[in-house]
């Protein structure tokens, strides 16, 4: 008599499609998944404990290394939380520079998400195109702060330095060029039959489930829930810009992917408006040399590239924090993976995990 047996497969810490050191323990019934247990923590570096032994400004480089693909957003979130705690008002020019850097970082993060998703589905060419254009963004970042990936450019009270000569013209040149590149990706990746067959109607997340599991970012918007902190709870100077928030209709992997593509176009709109409205003035508020916030706690969220990025800081009045906690969107989005994978095949796990767009530095902190 024929029998089938359940096998356990390690989609191990070293795997080309897990976007880093991430481990999924799969229990399979031939190729269909009965149970998927994600195991994370292979990159847990103890940033929250290390932050308790550093001064407030020394924590800024640590925030870079959590979501290392969109580091400007991490820096901004932390600095805005500290400014809320110390009630500092950031000068307008610094706010506009922050918006430009944040949106460029969001574009860079989405380019990697799209490129690596294309590699996961099978076409390495899409990856090369996306990286070619990401190099243009990194050139701009190198001009403004000297580093390509771990910037530490934001400071509590503003930004570290003003923009160099001719920076805004280069930004406008990039903003003029980029929409044609996104059209290229639309033709190469989004319109590809194999890509659509592997991502449409796969990994459907209904909107009530997305809200119950605290998902946020392009995942929540791909499930049709209109929630973008830049519109619902405008922070910094986002209320002065005119942009749209793309939503999904089928709540599947393809919708989450197209949300990211459309968000890139909206980010370009925001950058163009920010360059046109850029005021003159200082780039740093009057902040004491040694930062000693009043005792108390504060929680603030911004719209990061992968979801809502929040910082909870408890201060005891000294120059080092008592507790720093980061509400990491990739970690919380990953909590739903085990439910989402049930019933699909192994190849679909790759498509689903790619559409969740996680960064292991942020998952493990």
């Amino acid at each position, binding site marked *: 008599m024929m029998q089938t047996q359940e096998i356990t497969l390690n989609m191990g810490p070293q795997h080309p499609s897990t976007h880093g050191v991430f481990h999924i323990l799969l229990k399979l019934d031939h190729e269909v998944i009965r149970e998927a247990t994600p195991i994370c923590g292979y990159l847990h570096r103890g940033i929250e404990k290390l932050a308790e032994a550093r001064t407030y400004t020394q924590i800024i480089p640590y925030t870079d290394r959590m979501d290392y693909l969109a580091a400007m957003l991490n820096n901004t979130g932390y600095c805005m939380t500290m400014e809320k705690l110390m009630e500092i008002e950031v000068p307008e020019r610094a706010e506009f520079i922050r918006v430009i850097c944040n949106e460029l970082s969001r574009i860079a993060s989405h380019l990697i998400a799209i490129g690596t998703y294309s590699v996961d589905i099978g076409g390495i060419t899409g990856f090369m195109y996306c990286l070619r254009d990401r190099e243009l963004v990194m050139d701009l970042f190198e001009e403004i702060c000297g580093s390509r990936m771990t910037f530490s450019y934001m400071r509590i009270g503003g930004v570290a330095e003003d923009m160099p000569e001719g920076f805004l013209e280069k930004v406008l040149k990039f903003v003029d060029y980029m929409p044609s590149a996104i059209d290229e990706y639309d033709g190469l990746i989004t319109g590809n039959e194999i890509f659509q067959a592997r991502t449409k109607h796969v990994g459907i997340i209904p909107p009530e489930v997305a809200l119950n599991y605290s998902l946020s970012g392009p995942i929540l918007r791909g499930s049709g829930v209109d929630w973008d902190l830049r519109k619902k709870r405008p922070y910094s100077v986002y209320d002065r810009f005119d942009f749209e928030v793309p939503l999904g209709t089928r709540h599947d992997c393809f919708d989450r992917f197209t949300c990211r593509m459309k968000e890139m176009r909206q980010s370009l709109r925001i950058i163009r408006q920010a360059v046109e409205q850029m005021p003159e003035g200082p780039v740093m508020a009057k902040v004491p040399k040694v930062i000693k916030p009043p005792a108390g706690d504060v929680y603030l969220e911004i719209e990061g590239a992968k979801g809502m990025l929040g910082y909870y800081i408890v201060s005891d009045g000294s120059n080092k924090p008592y*507790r720093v*906690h980061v509400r990491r969107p990739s970690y919380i989005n990953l909590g739903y993976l085990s439910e989402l994978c049930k019933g699909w095949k192994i190849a679909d796990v790759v498509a689903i995990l790619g559409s969740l767009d996680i960064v292991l530095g942020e998952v493990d902190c």
Partner: protein
Amino acid sequence: MPGKEMTVIIEEIREKFAGIDVDEKMTVTVPAADLLSLMRELKENPEYDFNFLTSLTAVDYPEHFTVVYNLISFRHGHTLMVKVKIEDKEEPAAPSLTPLWGGANWQEREVYDLFGITFTGHPNLRRILLDDDFAGYPLRKDFEWEGGRV
């Protein structure tokens, strides 16, 4: 549809639940025994409609632990911070919010892993970020370790 103001909501829950404390930043501190019923009221009452649990974390103070919850109401746009004080520092425990929100699952596992606070009613309370056989709870203030600096 404009909902009630936060100050009105705070007054109403202060009347419904006797043991809670509210400070000047509108942070609600509730005893652990009332936590689940308060959260259920906040989530299911359509006038409050706090349907999104955005953050769950803990802090180790010298005399007690505090578990901090942050809620958002998508419909009305309100945010609320709720705290629970746990006096027992030897074997801290708090009720789990997994019956209400699936998003509490992994966040409570992280707090258990790093602080050692047990959440009663959690379906799968195991370590998540550290090795299963790691000794100790790193984010407690009395945790001692040797770093790699030579």
